[in-house]
């Protein structure tokens, strides 16, 4: 890894640090929307869903279709994308995962199935929308004025939206997990499938809702990512390993862990790129993930075991 010449070797200014902190809140919120769904599916199904990133891409392109191709308000995207991606995720449960579980599939089989699904989804998206980078038809140059005048920080309107929407949605998920029957069932299944089922948890129903929630969250994440930056077919795949990093750092299977992990990864990336070339953002995420796997294999809040 090379220290970049432009601003390397110098100590970053206060405002640079503050800006990095602000950026990482926004980025962290988007990561969290993706990471929470991934970790819930892992918790309930013990399935590492390699297609999760491409579900994010699907969400981003649903937003693109609404906003650019059909020229409808962007707000609609935030409602439709989670529905579409949630429905897609649920359909994979019926078409792919439930039949596969019935065959008593092993780990390698499940991993490769997820990889296959990821490829199909990603290249179906590329087939439909082409391989180029596109932008939403929104003005995302606008920034929050008082942030600029009072603090000298840049916060785009859509970054603010990402931050606020992210926090609101995640709080709602937190309440859902803590207060509802569905949340209780999900947590019970994560802990012990047999015990949960013998205590009357309807596992199939819970699994379907877990998929729906996972898809809806990552769908919103996709729209937010595209709105704050851009959209291209490998977007989600490129983000996937970073999202794994968030999930693993927080402790796989734990929703709050994924949340914490997302901000840890986002902060680390935004701060380290003050010294390291920006194109190494993803690498930073991996490296942190690998360090965590070695030092604290269960993650910050995790109960699961990553080590033999």
């Amino acid at each position, binding site marked *: 890894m*090379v220290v970049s010449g432009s601003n390397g070797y110098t100590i970053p200014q206060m405002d640079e640090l503050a800006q990095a902190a602000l950026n990482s809140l926004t980025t962290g919120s988007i990561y969290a929307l993706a990471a929470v769904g991934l970790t819930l599916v892992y918790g309930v199904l013990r399935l*590492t869903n390699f297609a999760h990133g491409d579900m994010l891409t699907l969400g981003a392109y649903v937003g693109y279709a609404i906003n650019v191709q059909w020229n409808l308000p962007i707000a609609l995207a935030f409602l439709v994308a989670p529905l579409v991606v949630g429905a897609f995720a649920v359909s994979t449960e019926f078409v*792919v995962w439930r*039949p*596969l579980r019935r*065959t008593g*599939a*092993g*780990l*390698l*089989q*499940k*991993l*490769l*199935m997820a*990889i*296959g*699904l*990821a*490829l*199909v*989804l*990603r*290249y*179906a998206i*590329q*087939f439909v929308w*082409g*391989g180029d980078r596109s932008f939403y038809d929104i003005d995302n140059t606008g920034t929050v004025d008082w942030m600029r005048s009072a603090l000298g920080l840049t916060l785009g309107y859509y970054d603010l939206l990402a931050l606020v929407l992210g926090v609101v949605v995640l709080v709602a998920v937190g309440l859902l997990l803590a207060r509802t029957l569905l949340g209780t069932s999900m947590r019970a299944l994560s802990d012990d499938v047999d015990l949960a089922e013998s205590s009357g948890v309807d596992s199939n129903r819970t699994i379907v809702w877990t998929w729906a929630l996972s898809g809806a969250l990552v769908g919103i994440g996709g729209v937010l990512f595209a709105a704050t930056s851009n959209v291209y077919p490998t977007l989600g795949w490129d983000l996937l*390993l970073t999202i*794994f*990093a968030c999930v*693993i750092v927080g402790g796989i299977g734990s929703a709050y862990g994924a949340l914490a992990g997302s901000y840890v990864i986002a902060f680390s990336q935004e701060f380290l790129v003050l010294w390291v*070339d920006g*194109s*190494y953002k*993803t*690498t930073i995420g*991996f*490296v942190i*993930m*690998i360090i965590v*796997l*070695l030092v604290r*294999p269960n993650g910050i809040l995790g109960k699961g*075991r*990553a*080590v*033999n």
Partner: protein
Amino acid sequence: MELLAEIGPWGAALTVAGIYAIFAIGLQVQVGHGGVDNFGQVAFFLIGAYASAILIERHDAGLVVGTLAAMAIAAVAAVIVSIPALRLRGDFLAISVLAFGEILRNVAINERELTNGSAGIDSLEFRVTFVRELRRTLREDGIEIDRVAPLLILTWIIVVVVALASWLLLRTPWGRVLRAVREDDAAVRALGKNAFAYKAQAMAIGAAWGALAGVLYSWHQVHFSPTSFEPIVTFTGFIIIIAAGLGSIWGTVLMAVLVQGVLIQGSRYIDTPLTNAQEASLRYMLIGVALMLMMRFRPQGLFGSREELAAADE
């Protein structure tokens, strides 16, 4: 020799199939015999291509030395990666080695001084210097061969050598312990054998084969860039070894020809009303569909037995 005068597109397709055969045999040693789910095999393919191109083109290492050095670098890299990764449970191991491959690709994109970044790098020595010389010599003897013939022949000689070497090695007591490790590594440790070393060695050998495939790929391409080293290369390898049945070396060679030569390379020559980009998307979707159908209906491979896959999960 008439045959070699004009071999056209199928020659190129068969060369790539041979390259994938070598790549997938490496994967077969790691996954099929060692039980290490190496989702990052493309990393060693990348090391092979870049290391040999840099050594041969810029440092005049020569074709043979450059190739052997690239294989050695990949083997050492595999051991280094194994030290942390082999401690991890199945899915974490898979994610970590996949990440390793993506890190290397990232490095290849960003370290422009070394790799020329996303513009890519040349590997001319074999195709330009060696082949031109060879053809001129042969022409003096009245023999005409196609430009792609030397690499096609060389690749398939290497396929046979690599397959035979792997097959023989896996039949030795070393291969026997390796398969025992795949089934139950605690039991192997209890017998006084270093299970970790066996897995790491399988990783290193598979990585060396992967790098050798990468070297041949760079000669085939003449010019290549980081986009050639996306994870899909690894997963195409997985399709090949699963279709062949985990563990089967010769089946791997056959399936490499079927999957890579016929389905993927061959399909490029079918005319469709679609654009090239759309055809490429469809090809990748085909890989995905093939993988999914196999996992659902034939996880044991087209000829293999179901227990092989179950044993690989231990």
